[in-house]
């Protein structure tokens, strides 16, 4: 057993850190945050050149075919840099297409995704704002060889910059996963202005949008299983990203505590401040253990994977918010300003908390798997 990154994994992580320190400085995060989409073509292409969009894509489709641990290592650095834009939404879609798509569909979508030419997002949430796939109620009507959809999806990440929206709709008792081009007739996209400007969400309306039955993903398989699996992948990457964010907040708070002087000495010599920092470390490290464990179990198809993913997301959701809060507190007044970068991370902690299900949602999932399980 070796619960540490391997040498190549460490190198990958270091190179991600260097790349982001160069290409995604706080000034750029702030600039992108002020734009309508938080997306930048140049940055996206640079990310594609790093191979990150290809990381999980199988080699036969032009990808690197690496595992979730490698993804987590890179995502952690993205979180440390508070990388704005549609990486995570495209990753979610990538994992979904990989699981639900036919060979032909995979070739059609995954290759351009890996190359940075296609961005995709999954439209799942509705009024209830629940990440439970059972909550998707939007109906897909079969009509002369096509699915027809009329209705609204909410909180769709990065819809405006995605070329492809995968709409999750109900087809009888099952799910229809419908790839819709952003510009297709009947699709309209409206921003939902939200707290975290680095990760935009949208309301997407479908007005009699038609998708040929043959285009639906997962039509002849287990669409719901594929969606749940893809959610687990995206959730795990998000958890690793949250760990990176926590690490940034911790490092920044500790650095500040060493230099800021009050009462003639560094505030880091006061135990009230020290203990906040000690707790931040404990939470950050615990979150890291949980996130990488989830990544590893998913990669290995370990039977514990579903529980592990929910453990990671439940813990990270609470921990990032808490670490963010303590980071603000240690900084005093400056920590509450727009000027200090802490605000970026604090808001990111909040949007990450609810994305793919908050702690309450994931604890209930754990309860279903652990409490309800009949003892053998």
């Amino acid at each position: 057993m070796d619960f540490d990154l391997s040498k190549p994994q460490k190198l990958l992580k270091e190179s991600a850190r260097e790349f982001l320190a160069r290409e995604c400085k706080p000034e750029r995060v702030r600039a992108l945050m002020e734009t309508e989409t938080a997306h930048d073509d140049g940055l996206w292409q640079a990310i594609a050149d790093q191979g990150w969009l290809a990381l999980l894509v199988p080699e036969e489709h032009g990808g690197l075919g690496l595992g979730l641990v490698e993804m987590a290592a890179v995502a952690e650095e993205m979180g440390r840099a508070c990388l704005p834009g549609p990486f995570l939404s495209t990753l979610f879609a990538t994992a979904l297409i990989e699981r639900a798509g036919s060979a032909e569909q995979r070739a059609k979508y995954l290759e351009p995704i890996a190359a940075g030419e296609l961005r995709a997002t999954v439209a799942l949430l509705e009024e209830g704002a629940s990440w439970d796939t059972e909550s998707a109620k939007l109906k897909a009507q079969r009509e002369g060889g096509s699915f027809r959809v009329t209705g609204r999806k909410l909180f769709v990440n990065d819809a405006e910059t995605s070329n492809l929206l995968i709409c999750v709709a109900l087809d009888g008792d099952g799910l229809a996963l419908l790839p819709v081009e952003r510009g297709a007739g009947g699709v309209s996209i409206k921003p939902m202005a939200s707290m975290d400007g680095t990760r935009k969400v949208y309301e997407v309306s479908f007005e009699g949008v038609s998708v040929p039955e043959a285009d639906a993903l997962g039509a002849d398989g287990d669409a719901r299983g594929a969606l749940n699996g893809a959610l687990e992948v995206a959730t795990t990457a998000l958890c690793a990203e949250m760990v990176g964010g926590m690490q940034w907040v911790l490092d920044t708070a500790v650095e500040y505590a060493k230099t800021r002087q009050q009462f003639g000495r560094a505030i880091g010599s006061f135990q009230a401040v020290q203990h906040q920092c000690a707790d931040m470390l404990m939470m950050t490290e615990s979150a890291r253990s949980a996130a990488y464990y989830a990544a590893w179990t998913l990669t290995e198809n370990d039977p514990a994977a579903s529980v592990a993913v929910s453990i990671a997301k439940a813990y990270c959701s609470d921990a990032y918010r808490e670490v963010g809060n303590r980071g603000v507190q240690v900084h005093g007044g400056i920590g509450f300003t727009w000027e200090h970068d802490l605000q970026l991370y604090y808001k990111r902690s909040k949007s990450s908390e609810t994305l793919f299900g908050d702690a309450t949602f994931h604890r209930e999932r754990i309860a279903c798997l652990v409490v309800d399980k009949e003892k053998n």
Partner: protein
Amino acid sequence: MDLNLTPNEQQFRDEFRAWLKANVPSEWKGGQLGSEDREDYIKYLRDWQRVLYEGGWAGISWPKAFGGRGATLMEQAIFQEELARANAPQLIGTIGLSLVGPTIIALGTDEQKARYLPKILSGEEIWCQGFSEPNAGSDLAALGTKAVRDGDDFIINGQKIWTSFAQLADWCLLLVRTDAEAPKHKGITCLLLDMRLEGIAVRPLRQMSGDSGFNEVFFSNVRVPVGQVLGEINKGWTTAITALMNERANLGTGVQVVFKRNLEALIARSRTVERQGRPASEDPLVRQKLAQAFLELEILRLNTNRALTSLSKTGIPGPEGSTLKLYWSEMNQRTQQTAQEILGPYGQLKEFDNGLWEYAYLRSRGNTIEAGTSEIQRNIIAERVLGLPKSY
């Protein structure tokens, strides 16, 4: 990163699993936690330890020469997981196994190793830790129990307090002051003390939980040969730190076994006690709390395995052990609070489940005090891990 077991680790696991299957006493019900000082319970654990020892499964990480297996740290983790999985009784003499033994291995002479280690493993000799004093708790280096040199002996006078297992112990890892003039960290010596020596009086203290886990120990002109020094004279602080680091690093793996069994019992109980006419396990709030307890315990296991990975690369337990200690002690208090909420007034009964919940709840109060308080652990993390300036 590879959390799969290596072929060697797998073989180790399979072997131990098979051994446990054949050897865990069938009458052991697992939930029988009860208080620490019950004689039948202590005897039970002693016998169990003997069985483990004879099977070659005690102190597995210790060198083969001293009765261990030379097992890797990872095998140690596997060992604990398998104990938990088999619902086996825990090991007794944890102070000997997790604190005294490793310290003797690190700093003892060959004779000391040969004399003491095998009997710690077999459970034949139980150890206690004589560190804290009435006026030296968190500030351990302020200890005042005096040892004055007289020829080839030290003569000891003074008092220890909170000494767990002193009432049963055969031996004590004792810290004494041998140089009153030197700065406080530089005049301390560590002794391997025979608890049967003349002049030692043990007075049990009753704990909040009603049992007598810890004691006062009084020394009046106790004569100890100088050969009993562990480490060097006046360098006892180094010995103490080695012991404390081992204690913090090791306890985290040991307590998991107890916690896991406890949580499983709680989950099973939640199906039989009621909330609003339904099993508590169906109540949304109870489910949230059980899931939280479950995930926190899983994360304890993961944190421990990560710490072991890093320890197997660096060799010596460092201040990071404080994070583990802080985590598990506070975790257990939250979990016991959850248990009380689920069980309501039943949780306070001395007869319900053998008094398990009443005892575990109260006992958990001590978790954030023993082996260094949470405040002290946070100080250590802040100053020695994060590098913040000293607060005192």
